[in-house]
């Protein structure tokens, strides 16, 4: 895809559209700016890819990207410009459905593009340990002891801290993409009834 013999291993949590955007961003910066297909073409490709990862992709964006790629490959002056579209072309070749999910369903299959995901605490799993509430840098998690925690979607900056600190044995914090966030539990139903626990 890019580079010279190096190998990058990525798992299903990496969004391939975002990877293409990252590499094109890098190449836009590397471009010397002499010839148009590279200087302007890559800039436009970067704008379109940023739009797609932001959930504002449009029909025809993929065709436009393919056309810009073809022109850069044929008409750019040097090998940087001629090979610059490769990250886009190879991710499109092997992960076209990820591009289509972003554009058509506003869904990021890797749950990585911030504009397309939401963090949500599954009320059935939350044990009110408070880890996410204490670590949240945006004070977006509401809750207290023995009360199921709730993410305030308006305040959430999607940093993912809650997802990381939620103890694996609860695994209550979920990343959602392409589906509506369930309405928060009414205040009255948030108290956790503990069966086995005696007075401490």
């Amino acid at each position: 895809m890019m580079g010279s013999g190096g190998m990058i291993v990525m798992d299903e949590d990496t969004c391939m559209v975002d990877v293409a955007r990252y590499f094109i961003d890098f190449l836009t910066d590397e471009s010397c700016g002499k010839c148009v297909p590279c200087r302007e073409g890559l800039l436009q490709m970067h704008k379109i890819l940023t739009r797609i990862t932001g959930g504002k992709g449009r029909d025809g964006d993929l065709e436009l990207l393919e056309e810009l790629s073809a022109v850069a490959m044929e008409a750019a002056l040097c090998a940087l410009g001629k090979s610059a579209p490769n990250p886009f072309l190879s991710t499109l070749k092997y992960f076209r459905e990820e591009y289509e999910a972003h554009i058509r369903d506003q869904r990021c299959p890797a749950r990585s593009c911030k504009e397309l995901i939401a963090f949500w605490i599954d009320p059935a799993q939350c044990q009110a340990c408070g880890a996410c509430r204490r670590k949240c840098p945006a004070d977006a998690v509401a809750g207290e002891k023995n009360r199921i925690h709730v993410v305030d979607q308006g305040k959430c900056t999607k940093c993912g801290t809650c997802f990381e600190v939620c103890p694996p044995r609860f695994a209550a914090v979920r990343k959602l993409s392409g589906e509506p966030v369930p309405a928060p539990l009414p205040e009255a139903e948030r108290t956790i009834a503990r069966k086995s626990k005696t007075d401490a």
Partner: protein
Amino acid sequence: MRDVTLEIDGQAVKATEGMTLLAAATAAGIPIPTLCHHELLEPFGSCRLCTVEVDVRGWTNRVAACVYPVEDKLVVRTRSPEIDRIRRVILELYLAHAPDSPRLKALAGEYGADPNRFEKEASFCIHCGLCVRYCAEVKKKDAVGFIDRGARKEICFVPEVAARECWACKECFPLCPTEALQAAYVLVEALKFPRPAKA
């Protein structure tokens, strides 16, 4: 210098070794569009609008006619669906920066370029380098140059040199394919030397 014969758009064209495809085609009356070319200046090859197809050893390559040297028995095509597509997209990219340039508009009409395909970002300069190269090669003053690189590249006058040389010269203004220099000059003049209000 050896004479060579090549084929451009099916027409046999005689040329001298060392000439570029663009020079050979122009001498034979075959038009190839250009923006960054000027006969007084060294070939630059930045606008890529003069891209043509050549057949070399069984391969079809797309090359910039303004920098590609002629070869004996070379087969060249100045128009093809792929060439037209390259020129159309290049013009569309340019039109995002200089939507009102008459030369770009005329070429856009010829190649069916949509001026609204890309988001407008009117910087006017299309980095053809004519002013920069003319100042360096013909006037040997280097009063204007390129700064930065990639998408942030711009033309910039060197104030120390420009203050001394430019006022009496201004020969780069008419070269500009988007008339940006002209506009910049008028603007600077207006700001720096406001005309007295009419009585």
